[in-house]
């Protein structure tokens, strides 16, 4: 380890952005210096807008239009003299791309040419860089492709090479992309959020594969991720970025065990997977125990019909006590969203029953607008993407007030302007939004603020049950943590009952009282959170729990004496004040 493979020094990158009729340059990255040793993994960690992806793009020489390296150097030390990628002519960088530096992209779904076979995509680097005499002719290229596909763990590589991307699952596509990246045994692999579009169990296997290949090829990996737990588990060194600047950098253990800056401490405290928190204990059986508020039985949902029918939900049953949170956990295709929408009375399942209190949710049947509307005052849905769920043309006040306008005064609605404004103001206050957002449009708000608006809109007609469909999944950890806190306090104050749909077991650990684990439409395990998370009975639940990234040395142990939730929250708020 004499000298590093990559040395970034004082890097500054700016983008040209439109402002009015002209353009301005906005700095995205400023004064970032990094070192990546041979065979090492360096994780670039940061929230959205931290500049982590921009740094990756600068290194690989693929900044989007309008992006420009303003200052600094990106030295790559290959055999012989180092080259500065920031100053090299475009042609020379192009020569290095794919051969010495390779990319594992973020979204395997859209990163493979849909009209090319997997084999053709994997062969691309071999065909582009023809100077390597080993793979000049068709046959040797084909053999190499099959060898690579086999190496990344695709079954039946001969057949896979002839298939098209849409015939493969997300995890398989990412494996193919990794095969293409390592085709020419690059010195540096830039992995830009390589698993954030994948299910947790797949994420673990892909990261394992990257680790293995790194060991085999002796390549260095620049791992760009928003997930501190992934970085903690996989990286030798971690660099924390914040708003385009380097917050701190160092060996992973040092950074995570003894963060030097308050910002890193907050990130660490907010990362659900790294939180030192026990599942909620099972509640003592209250007077209502015999009659849970929500009762779902024999739920079946089929898409299509006849021979093409596909069972998205297969005989699922669970019950939720009043005032508690029930988590539906599963990976993509597990049917969790379908169940949530059925409970929220947004579509009718093929079979089964859903009851809220003494009401039959399915009684009114049919499409969203034909059913008996009165059920909507009982149950509301908050969806994953608050931007999509807010009408872009209507102000926040209009959005939050709309549910009230849908009902007559006798049904709890409000038509009077002044009264409506007062209710909206109260609702904003309830979700801790300043009063002045009322007259703004959704696009003028941040993601976290929009999600607060969506929550306020759901709560304004005072429902008893709220279905939260991946409601915090798209948010940065700190914002995610704040929204979870908000949800917890609203539950305490209003006695709400939540159906919390998520793929993230770490979040479940924090918020759920009871859990149903779903796999391919069927419930594999259901029960109290404490029981399911600490003593899982089904192997799939165990696999899911294992897949939650977090290195052993950071994992909370049962022996730790746990701080109370309130203590933790207080410590947390102090941290945030310090950062802000």
């Amino acid at each position: 380890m004499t000298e590093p493979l990559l040395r970034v020094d004082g890097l500054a990158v700016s983008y040209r952005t439109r402002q009015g009729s002209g353009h301005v340059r906005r700095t995205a990255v400023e004064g970032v210096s990094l070192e990546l040793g041979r065979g090492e993994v360096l994780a670039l960690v940061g929230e959205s807008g931290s500049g982590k992806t921009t740094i990756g793009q600068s290194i690989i020489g693929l900044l989007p239009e309008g992006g420009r390296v303003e200052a600094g150097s990106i030295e790559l030390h290959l055999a012989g003299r180092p080259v500065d990628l920031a100053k090299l002519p475009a042609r020379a960088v192009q020569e290095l791309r794919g051969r010495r530096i390779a990319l594992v992209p973020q979204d395997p779904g859209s990163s493979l040419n849909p009209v090319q076979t997997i084999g053709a995509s994997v062969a691309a680097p071999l065909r582009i860089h023809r100077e390597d005499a080993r793979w000049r002719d068709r046959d040797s290229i084909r053999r190499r492709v099959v060898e690579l596909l086999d190496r990344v763990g695709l079954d039946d590589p001969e057949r896979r090479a002839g298939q098209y991307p849409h015939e493969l699952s997300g995890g398989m596509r990412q494996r193919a992309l990794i095969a293409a990246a390592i085709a020419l045994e690059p010195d540096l692999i830039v992995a830009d959020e390589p698993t954030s579009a994948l299910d947790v169990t797949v994420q673990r296997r892909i990261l394992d594969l990257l680790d293995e290949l790194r060991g085999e090829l002796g390549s260095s990996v620049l791992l760009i991720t928003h997930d501190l737990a992934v970085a903690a588990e996989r990286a030798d060194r971690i660099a924390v970025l914040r708003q385009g600047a380097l917050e701190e950098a160092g060996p992973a253990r040092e950074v995570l065990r003894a963060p030097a800056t308050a910002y890193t401490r907050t990130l660490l405290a907010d990362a659900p997977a790294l939180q030192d928190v026990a599942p909620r204990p099972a509640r003592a059986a209250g007077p209502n125990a015999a009659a849970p508020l929500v009762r779902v039985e024999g739920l079946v949902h089929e898409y299509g019909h006849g021979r093409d029918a596909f069972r998205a939900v297969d005989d699922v049953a669970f019950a939720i006590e009043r005032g508690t949170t029930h988590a539906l956990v599963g990976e993509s295709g597990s049917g969790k969203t379908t169940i949530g929408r059925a409970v929220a009375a947004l579509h009718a399942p093929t079979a089964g029953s859903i009851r809220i209190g003494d009401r039959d949710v399915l009684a009114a049947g049919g499409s969203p607008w034909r059913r008996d509307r009165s059920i909507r005052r009982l149950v509301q849905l908050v969806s994953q993407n608050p931007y999509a769920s807010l009408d872009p043309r209507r102000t926040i006040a209009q959005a939050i007030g709309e549910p009230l306008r849908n009902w007559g005064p006798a049904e709890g609605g409000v038509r009077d302007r002044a009264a409506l404004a007062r209710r909206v103001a109260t609702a904003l206050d309830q979700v801790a939004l300043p009063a002045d957002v009322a007259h703004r449009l959704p696009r003028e708000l941040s993601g976290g603020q929009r999600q607060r608006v969506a929550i306020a809109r759901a709560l304004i007609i005072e429902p008893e049950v709220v279905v939260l469909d991946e409601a915090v999944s798209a948010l940065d950890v700190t914002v995610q943590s704040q929204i979870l806190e908000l949800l917890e306090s609203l539950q305490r104050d209003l006695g709400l009952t939540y159906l919390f749909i998520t793929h993230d077991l770490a979040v479940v650990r924090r918020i759920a009282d009871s859990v149903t684990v779903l796999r391919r439409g069927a419930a594999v395990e259901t029960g109290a959170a404490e029981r399911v998370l600490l003593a899982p009975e089904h192997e799939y639940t165990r696999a899911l729990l294992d897949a939650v990234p977090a290195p052993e040395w950071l994992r909370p142990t049962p022996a730790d004496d746990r701080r109370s939730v309130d203590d933790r929250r207080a410590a947390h708020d102090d941290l945030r004040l310090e950062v802000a």
Partner: protein
Amino acid sequence: MSALTLLPAGAAEAPARAARPKPRATLVVAVLVLAVALAWAFLPWLFTSQDPIAGVAAEALQAPSAAHPFGTDATGRDLLARVIFGAGNSLAGAAIAVLVGLVVGTALGVLAGSVGGLVEDAVMRVVDVLLAIPGLLLALSVIVLLGFGVTNAAIAVGVTSIAVFARLSRSQVVRVRRSDYVEAAFGSGGTFLAVLGRHVLPNSLGAVLALAALQFGSAILAISTLGFLGYGAPPPTPEWGLLIAESRDYVATSWWLTTLPGVVVAAVVLAANRVAAAIREATA
């Protein structure tokens, strides 16, 4: 392919280019051109003192000059006066055409998109049929049915655009209807009509408006084409297409007779298209 010097730099800039807005200055010019054309249509006598119908035989076929900026035609009529007075026919025709397409097409499209089911299937099959007949042939069929004349030509052009309006407005309504915010609106207890009025129509009609502006330009073109073929206004009405058709016999000697009216038509159509693009950008 040697003319295409394929540089990575060019390709690198491509992604963001798709969304790049057009320069503002051209929009200002376009609005000015349309404003002038509209002024010509409503107040033609303000812009010329010449008679568009009766000519001065002694001044026949004069090249453009200070007295006759666009020159004169074979019967000594001032060409600029004919173009200015023709604006009314052409723009009114285009307006009628757009109105027919917009009202009938959008009504069909919104009906299909918001009700769905069998109604949607039926409407869309009718649209398929309307689209299957090439536009000009459909317009000609309608003209044969209604008879020649500038209004009938306009209606015929409008009929040909019904299918386009219907298809666009349906797809917009369907897009909005599938959006999360419409589901949220139903989810909070909104009735069908309330959701339609609050969310679906405001969010889907922007694109329809942009299409209307675009159709205004193509309607001017189509009406002038029908006029040129002789199915629009009868001579000596000043109508842009007819104007050019009448001048064809003098193409060897009097270039201005065809060239200048054509430039005016192209300028107005181009301006309408630019405004359409601006509306699309603003409502997207």
